[in-house]
């Protein structure tokens, strides 16, 4: 899998409360056509709604055929500024851009309320170190990621000085 950064620029995000609220679904459609655009640059052309596979099936039956990888990879995700942590299943995503999309959906509201600033995706690996996401192949990332944090770029400068435990504290709001 090619290395891909997560590139969290603030885009036109909308409220993304769980429970199938209206704007969340709008994001789904917009995101689908964005993926289309991406794949077009990869040389594959895609058309909205083709092939005619229903969206539930698309989300649930495609992907890895290696049985050993079908176990769950739930990790906590925190975002600086968001009141609640979330959990996502890394195994449901095919790569970094897919993950980016999912995180956009989860934290849409917080991102919108924040002053335009960029976020840096970092994760805690098995050794307890905080790593920048995007360097290693997706599968390797999935195996080693214990938790994710979307850190405000503004906070990055002071970060290196913190011990892992303090970094954890830093992810808790209030």
């Amino acid at each position, binding site marked *: 899998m090619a290395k891909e950064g997560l590139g969290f620029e603030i885009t036109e995000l909308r409220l993304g409360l*769980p*429970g*199938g609220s*209206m704007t969340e*679904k*709008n994001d*789904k*459609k917009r995101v*689908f056509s964005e993926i289309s655009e991406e*794949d077009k640059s990869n040389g*594959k052309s*895609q*058309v*909205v*709604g*083709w*092939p*005619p*596979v*229903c*969206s*539930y*099936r*698309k989300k*649930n*039956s*495609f*992907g*890895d*055929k*290696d*049985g*050993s990888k*079908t*176990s*769950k990879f739930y990790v906590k995700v925190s975002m600086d500024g968001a009141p609640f942590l979330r959990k996502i299943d890394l195994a449901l995503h095919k790569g970094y851009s897919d993950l980016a999309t999912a995180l956009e959906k989860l934290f849409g509201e917080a991102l919108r309320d924040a002053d335009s600033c960029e976020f840096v995706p970092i994760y805690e690996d098995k050794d307890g170190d905080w790593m920048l996401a995007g360097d290693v192949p997706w599968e390797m990332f999935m195996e080693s990621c214990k938790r994710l944090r979307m850190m405000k770029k503004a906070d990055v400068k002071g970060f290196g000085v913190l011990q892992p435990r303090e970094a954890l504290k830093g992810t808790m709001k209030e």
Partner: protein
Amino acid sequence: MMNYFPDEVLEHVFDFITCHKDRNSVSLVCKSWHRIERYSRRRVFIGNCYSISPERLIARFPGVKSLTLKGKPHFADFNLVPYDWGGFVYPWIKVLAETGIGLEELRLKRMVVSDESLELISKTFVNFQSLVLVSCDGFSADGLAAIAANCRFLRELDLQENEVDDHRGHWLSCFPESCTSLVSLNFACLKGEVNLGALERLVSRSPNLKSLRLNRSVPLDTLQKLLMRAPQLVDLGIGSYVHDPSSEASNKLKHAIQRCKSIMSLSGFLEVAPRCMSAIYPICGNLTTLNLSYAPGIHGNKLTKLIQHCRKLQRLWILDCIGDKGLGVVASTCKELQELRVFPSDPFGAGNDAVTEEGLVLVSAGCPKLNSLLYFCQQMTNAALITVAKNCPNFIRFRLCILDPVRPDPVTNQPLDEGFGAIVQSCKRLKRLSLSGLLTDQVFLYIGMYAEQLEMLSIAFAADSDKGMLYVLNGCKKLRKLEIRDCPFGNAALLEDVGKYETMRSLWMSSCEVTLGGCKTVAEMMPSLNVEIINESDQTEFNLDDGQKVDKMYLYRTLVGHRKDAPESVWIL
């Protein structure tokens, strides 16, 4: 002669007539039959929730106990319809509740179901027994909890392919100890964890449980315990199937499975370690239905070995990673096969594992009873379709989807007109057809000429001119649903016979050549139709010029005029 029978006798006779179409016919015979049929009707099917209102439903069928409703148009499945288009069930529940209808069964497809609706159902209808939701959205585990907690005589809770927000898994614990009536429980589409202890207890106290479909959070050891408690199961959907074949857990599972001698339908394997498939071989011999379309983990040898044990299969849903060779195994093993669905496992990928025309030909040769097909493939040839048509003249449903939508016959480079022509000519009972590949007006000439029983037709990226659509509208007398995308059909075709649309349930046209003016004309000429224009782009850009091409049009017959719940993106002419 029948007129001299008292009403009760006629009612008793009508009890034996269960099919909706037949009951509709019965009601047209004469006034007294209409009256008797009306009051004795228990099951009502409404294919388009906007074609009638709940008030009128109750006025005509005051004794209704079972209601089936469908909402969004079919293409909503493929993201072509805005999420907020409509199809809300709440107004129906509200009216049914207010008029004291004793609703017992509700089956919904592509509708928006709020938690509020589910709560209202659970608290109003004392005898509510059966809830079936297919491809619905709008509800969460809270709504399910209300159903579980309050429906004292619940027999069936069947959730198929719904988008559910179920971050809280408490709903299953809400079934009271007194609930022992469950016959069918399907929560495979839920993502969240459920209380496993509650699940085990629920199954233990449900002696009538015949159908159980678990979600992926239910681990193997729980599965084993459930099977031990419910050896009478007829339909099983496995959630997680990950175990070491040499382990104690695996042995216990094998033992539990062997006790289940009645299982005829198997599905799920949402998480699977394919080395362990041998544990289920003992029940494969009885299976009539097998759905592995959500189990990409089972492929290659493991998959074909499994299928080789399933000699009685009538319905098989699989992924295309089975390959043409695997379909050959199906052809030689499953002589009773009636329905085959082959889904793409990687629709945007290289398609190395995908199936081609060869697999389909093999199945058609080996399975003469085949009557229903959904086949996603890399390519198709006219020769293959002609062979299939000869081998299987009994198709009722034939849906072919070539992943590249305008691909011609790779051998001859010709359009696939002749191949599909052979299908419609040979299969005189064909009711549903979906086309793909490179197609000209010619295929529609064949369809109009031969597809006399056709009720539903799906067309994409096909035809050269209006003639194509006209052949179909003029020829297919029984057509009920027509859905078209990306075809060069314009106003001439749309306006040729607007009266025809009153004989159909609906017409969908997107990315075609029809203009706003054309749609307006239909709406003016036919007040019995709702003509909806769907425009999802920025509203301020919406050009009100009649010559403007319409991106998406959905029209349907209705007895109740314009609906009041359309969102901003939908304009009803």
